[in-house]
Each structure stands twice: as C-alpha cells, then as structure tokens.
C-alpha cells in the first residue's frame, strides 16, 4: 500500500484549503476563537452590569447572616446562621428527598414492573394503568396534586388520623414518635455494626461452601437471626437504652414526636410514584430482554419457577436494567428541585430562591447550585458504573 502511494504520480497541486487536515485545524481554531470571544464578552458584560447594579462579587456572602428561617432542618440552624449554613441545610434536605424517594421508587417500580408481566389479568391491568397514567402527567402537576389536593385536605390536628396512638396524620404533616437515645446506645449501635459485618462474612463463607460442596445453607434465615439477634442481646444487656417519645395532642397542636412536614411527604410520594412508573418499564423491558430459551433451559435443568426467576432470569435482567435505572435515579434527584413549587426547603428553594433574592449574587449562587447537581450526577453515575462493571457480561 505504502509502496503504491510512493510511486503514485505527483498529484496536481490543489489549494491548501482543500486539505482536510488544514480544514479541520482551521475549523477548530475558529470554534475556539468563537467560544473564547463569547466568553470574554459575557464576562465583560457581567462585570459592567454588576458594577452598575452595585452587586458584590465573590463568595464572601456565604459567611453573612442569613436572617431567614427554614421549616425543616436536619442540622442545627437558626435565623442567625450564615448563608453557608443555609446552603448545607438545603443540600441535606435535597439528599434526604432523593434517598427516600429512590428507595421507595425502586420498591414500587420493581413490583409494578413484575406486575406488568404477571399472568394474572387483574394485576397486569392495574400495573399497566398505573404506568400509563403516572408517566403521562407532569411531575410538577403530581407534586401540586399531592400537596394541595391530598395533604392539605387532611383533617386538622384535633381530628387527625390516628394510627395506634403512635403516628398521627393531619394537615400539619405526619407526626411520628421521636427516638430518645439513652445511656448505652453506642453499644447497641456497635452491636448492629458487628451483626452487619457478621452477616456479610457468613454470606461469603456460605457462597464459598456452596461452590465447594454444592450444598446450600439457609443464608437468609441465619443472616436475619444475626441482624436481629445481636442488637437485641445488646439492648437487653444495656437495659433498652432507646425509647420513644410519643406525640401528644395539647390544645391545637402536637407536643413531642417528630413532625414530618407535608411538603416533604407530598414531594417524596409524588417523585417516588412518578419515577416508579419509569423504573417499572425498565424492569419489564429488562426481564423481557432475557431470551425465553434461558427459562426453558432452566426448567429442563429441573429448577423450579422461583429458582429460575431468582438464579437465572433476574441476574441477567439486571444487566439490562442497571443503566436506565441509573438515569432514573439521577432524574429523581434532579426532579427533587421541583420542591421550590410547593415550598419544601431544598437546595434550590433555600439557596437559588431565598438566598439569591436577598443577596442578588446570581452568578455565584447559580454556579454553586448547578455545580452541586453536576457533582451529584457524577457521583451517582460513578457508583452505578462500578456496579454495572461488576455485573456486566464478560466477553471473550
């Protein structure tokens, strides 16, 4: 080949702008210049505008006193705290919604997704209707619906729905008992950690034994016994240090207990059910992607239905399910920013909303907010990619 090119007759010299290499370099230089010039113009305009409007720049404002209250704080916060503290409170509230929402959405999504493939007509119908309705309504609509039409319509605290005198549901939110940690809680927590480690080790050992001898041990039951038994023993030894403070109705409101604000409940339920509809579709397509021959082969090997599902179908379906599941988790996290629509104090509401209005430092605040979501996205996809790599098909 190179020999041929060597002896090729000297080509007629064409202009250098027809040379693909020159063109590509030229195009890239032009693209770079355009981006740099645009960026420079934006920066210049921003500097002039900020100077004209007398808006401070830099991140110094994070140390200033915020002066506004937040109605759900996972860490100590008061009106005299700084904007930086308010940022942390908002971030934690976002993470709380995301984590609770993801757990709920996964459970509902898997149930509905398997329900869509059920042989039972009624179950299949209900699952299909669930998916089609929830998927085709805007999430903000659903959040507003839960907040305005369902939770605000709950009775007032005096007539609240009473579940076993422990949990009260009213239009002020859900009141649950508050755990009180007495002397010796540390020991119980240590015991719990120990039980967890023991359970993992036992699972490993049992798997190894099965590989060697082909015998299966009742891993599930032993681990359950470990996880419940060891902390229970610790509790008995320390004399039950963890007690619960029951909420009580005093006058027009509740005293004691922990109040879960209605905004949180509405947002979490709406996001979890909405995302679950998408997860259900991923699960369904994942299971359907496993070829029917796998089921037949498993049956002919003598595996029962449950074993076929657990040992053959689901491990293979997970490969297909994981990547779209990741993006659904990310979507839920990003959709949690809709909290601002009903006033749940998440990152966007607290930081890009109230703090931005008070300080006017749009560039810094929006950059930080966007940065947080970008980092959350990257972390989630990193975790999921690692998992994906572990379950991925090993191709030879």
């Amino acid at each position, binding site marked *: 080949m190179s020999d041929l090119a060597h002896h090729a007759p000297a080509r007629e010299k064409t202009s250098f702008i027809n040379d693909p290499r020159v063109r590509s370099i030229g195009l890239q230089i032009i693209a770079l210049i355009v981006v740099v010039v645009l960026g420079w113009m934006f920066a210049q305009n921003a500097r*002039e505008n900020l100077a004209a409007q007398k808006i401070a720049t830099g991140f110094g404002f994070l140390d200033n006193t915020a002066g506004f209250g937040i109605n759900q704080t996972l860490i100590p916060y008061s009106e005299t705290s700084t904007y930086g503290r308010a940022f942390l409170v908002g971030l934690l509230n976002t993470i709380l919604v995301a984590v609770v929402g993801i757990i709920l959405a996964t459970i509902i999504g898997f149930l509905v997704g398997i329900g869509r493939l059920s042989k039972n007509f009624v179950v299949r119908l209900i699952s299909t209707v669930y998916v089609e309705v929830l*998927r085709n309504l805007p999430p903000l609509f659903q959040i507003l619906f839960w907040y*305005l039409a369902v939770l605000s319509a709950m009775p007032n605290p005096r007539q609240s729905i009473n579940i076993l005198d422990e949990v009260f549901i009213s239009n002020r939110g859900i009141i649950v008992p508050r755990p009180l940690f007495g002397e010796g809680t540390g020991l119980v927590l240590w015991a719990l950690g120990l039980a967890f480690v023991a359970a993992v080790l036992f699972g490993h050992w049992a798997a190894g034994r099965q590989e060697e001898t082909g015998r299966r041990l009742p891993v599930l039951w032993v681990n359950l016994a470990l996880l419940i038994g060891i902390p229970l023993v610790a509790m008995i030894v320390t004399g039950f240090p963890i007690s619960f403070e029951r909420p009580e109705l005093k006058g027009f409101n509740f005293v004691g207990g922990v109040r879960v604000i209605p905004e949180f409940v509405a947002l979490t339920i709406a996001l979890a059910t909405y995302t679950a509809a998408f997860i259900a579709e991923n699960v369904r397509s994942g299971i359907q992607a496993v070829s029917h021959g796998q089921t037949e082969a498993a049956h002919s090997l003598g595996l029962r239905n449950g074993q076929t599902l657990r040992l053959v179908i689901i491990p293979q379906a997970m490969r297909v399910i994981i990547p779209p599941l990741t993006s659904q988790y990310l979507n839920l996290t990003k959709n949690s920013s809709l909290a601002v629509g009903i006033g749940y104090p998440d990152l966007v509401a607290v930081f890009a909303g109230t703090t931005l209005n008070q300080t006017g430092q749009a*560039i810094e605040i929006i950059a930080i907010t966007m940065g947080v*979501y*970008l980092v959350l996205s990257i972390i989630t996809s990193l975790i999921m990619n690692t998992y994906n790599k572990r379950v991925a098909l090993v191709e030879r």
Partner: protein
Amino acid sequence: MSLTFDDGTFIRNEMVQPLPPPRRQVGALGWVRENLFSSVLNTVLTLAGIALVALILPPLVRFMILDAVWTGENREACLGPEVGACWPFIKAKFGQLIYGFYPIDQRWRPNIVFAAGILLMVPLLVPSWPLKRLNSFLFFVIYPVVSFVLLTGGNIDASAFLFEHFGLIHSFVGDVTMAGVNATFWVDYVLTAIAAAAFVGGLLALLGGSGTGAARTTLWVFLAFGALVLAWDIDFGLPYVETRQWGGLLVTLVIAVTGIVASLPLGILLALGRRSQMPIVRLLCVVFIEFWRGVPLITVLFFATYMLPLFLPSGTNPDALLRALVGVALFSAAYMAEVVRGGLQAISKGQYEGAMAMGLTWSQMMRLIILPQALTLVIPGIVNSFISLFKDTTLVLIVSIFDFLGQLRASFTDPNWATPVTLYTGFAFAGVVYFLFCFGMSRYSLFVERRLNTSHRR
C-alpha cells in the same frame, strides 16, 4: 365403526370422537381459573386487585360524571352537600386556561396559530403522506416566523437596531419609511449583502477555493436573514400583545414547540460535533451536552431568568418568556443531541464508507446518506423527548410565567368559585388534558417504533 370377526377378533378402524375438554378448563370459566385463581397467591392478588379497582373507580366516575354539576353561573351551583366535579368552573375559566390574559378580541390570532400548527403537524406525522421536505420546511422555518408575527403583532423595529451597526448610506439619505418598513435600511442591506458576498467570494478565490460558491452561500444567508427581519418589520396593523399577557395552554404549546423546533437543528449539530474527529470541537460539544444534562431544568430557568441578563450588554432587557425559551431550547438541545447520536451510532460503518467511496463531501454524506437514515431511526426517541419537554414546560410557573398549570393554580384563588370541589375539578381537568397530549404522543411513538421494527417478533 368397527369390524368384528367370527373368531371374536375385534378391530376398530376408526377413532372414537374425542370427548369435549372439561368445562372448567375452556371458555370463560377456564380462562378465569387459569389466569385469576390458579394458586392461593394468585387468588389473593386477584381479590386485592378487584378491591382496589372497586375502591377507586366508582368514586371517580361518580365525581367526574354522575354527581358532577354541569350548569351554573358561580360558586352557588357547586355548594351542595354531595357534589362532584364543578364543571361550570372550568367553563368560566376556559378562556383563561387556554389563552391566559390574551385580549379577548385578538384571540383569533392564537386560534389561527393552533389551526395552522395542527394542519402542518398532522401530514408531517403520517409517514405515508408525500411532500415531507416541503412540509418540514413549512413547519420548522415558516411556521415559527408566522406564529411569532401573529402572536406578538410583529412590527418590531429590528432594522432600527441593526442600523447602528451598518448604515452605509443612511447618513446621506435619511429615513424613507413605507408601511413601517424603512426603505433606506433595505437599500443599505442589499448593498451590504452584495459587498459581503463579493468580499467572501474574492477571498476564497484568492485562496484557491470556490469563489462563486462561497459568494452564493453568503447571499443566501443574507437573504434568509433579511426575509426574517422584513417579516418582523412590516406593519400588518396587528395590535401589539406583550408576552406578559400570554398564558395558559398557549404558553405551554409555544414553549414546547419552540423547544422542539430549536432543539432539533441544535441537537443535530451537537451530535455531529460529538461524533467528530476534531478533538477541540468534540470536547466543546461533550462539555456542553453533559453540562445541560447534568443540571435540573429549574436551575436552567433560574440561570435564564437571573444570570442571562447579566451576560448581555446593559440596556438589552430580553423578554421574560424569551429568556425562558432560550433556557428550554439549550436544555432540550442537549437531550436531543444524545437522541440523534444514538441514531448516528446505529448507522453501519458501510454507509459512511460507501458514501465516501462515491466521492461525496462530508456535508453531502451527512445530508444525503447518514442523517436521513439516522433521523428516521430515532423518531420514537425524538417524540419521547418531546413528551418530556411538554411535561417540563410546567416548570416555567416557578419563574412566574403562567402556563396551563400556572393559570389553573391562579384560578383556584378566585373567590367567585371558592368551593370545596374547585381544587379537585381543576386537577381533574388539567390531568385529563395533560394525559391526552402525552398519551397521544406516546402512542404515536409506539406506532412509529412498530413500523420501524421489521425484525421477527416472538
């Protein structure tokens, strides 16, 4: 029948008719046994499911139809003890939900835009109908311009703004205006176009490229841009309606359609850039796409509302709706780019190589061979991202633009219609509207998917 011989041998030479299968295994009864009550678990699930349906469906039907109030002038009609949906409330607020505060005597304008949109959209969506090129040109190029002029009233003095930047003969002649069009500006514009074309053509000819081709391209660009400015410039005698008065479904559709019309070409460019061999271009495209895909739309809208005005020269204060549109367009372009990239990656390498072997240039290859195939492949994906864009338009209510949901929320506060069922009526109506739009689009996407899927099905 059978044969019986003398020695007692019995030969049956015909099969006995098979008995009918047991009644409990065939027909409706068999189906019910097989599908609903085959095991204990299944029976429990069936009963629980029926209970759930019984719990939800009858109250829903009662609320929406049987107990609903259909006529009335104000809240008095819907105050009864056991009333369902208060439909007169929707009737009273209908105009507001569709047009927002668009002046009532001007509502024929959005109506024309709606009608034209449907007329252009339907033939575009039916795969077998002809004239797709003309149709998409009308929908993606002409329709947005016409809609813009119709909805705002046009007559935007774009020429005056441009005049500061190129006014070759303005200083000699002054302004000559007819029908809101500044004639001097247009003479200027034509002269500038010719000069620019001559300059570009000359430059390329000097470098050894195709001078006439470059000059022609430049003229086309000037022509297209000039037509756009002229359309805005002409005074059609329509009263100006500022975007603050727009609202309801009109704004929802404007945002959704602008998003799709703007994001498709931008998305194609970004996808091509991401697949390009040029490292810098690829890097820029990847950063752009991943950035917008990594942040929630709300922060993008905050960015467009609070940050964008800071980046523009002081004095230019773009319209609130326009700013939101820019945000939505950039956001959806990033998602569209990924959809298109999927299509590009699905085209086999042989197509690229075949096109190159035919001696096509890169742009010819993309325009004639790759993109038509890739875009047809990803029509379901495009429709799906249109659905999520449609659902996402609700977010603009957070930056105080009153779309359909925003108007609905505002209408709840009307004391004339303050009844216990107003809220539920509104949600029921809006839910049905959103569902019809999104469900219709998702059915369409499924239909195309089935048409494209020529493989064997189990």
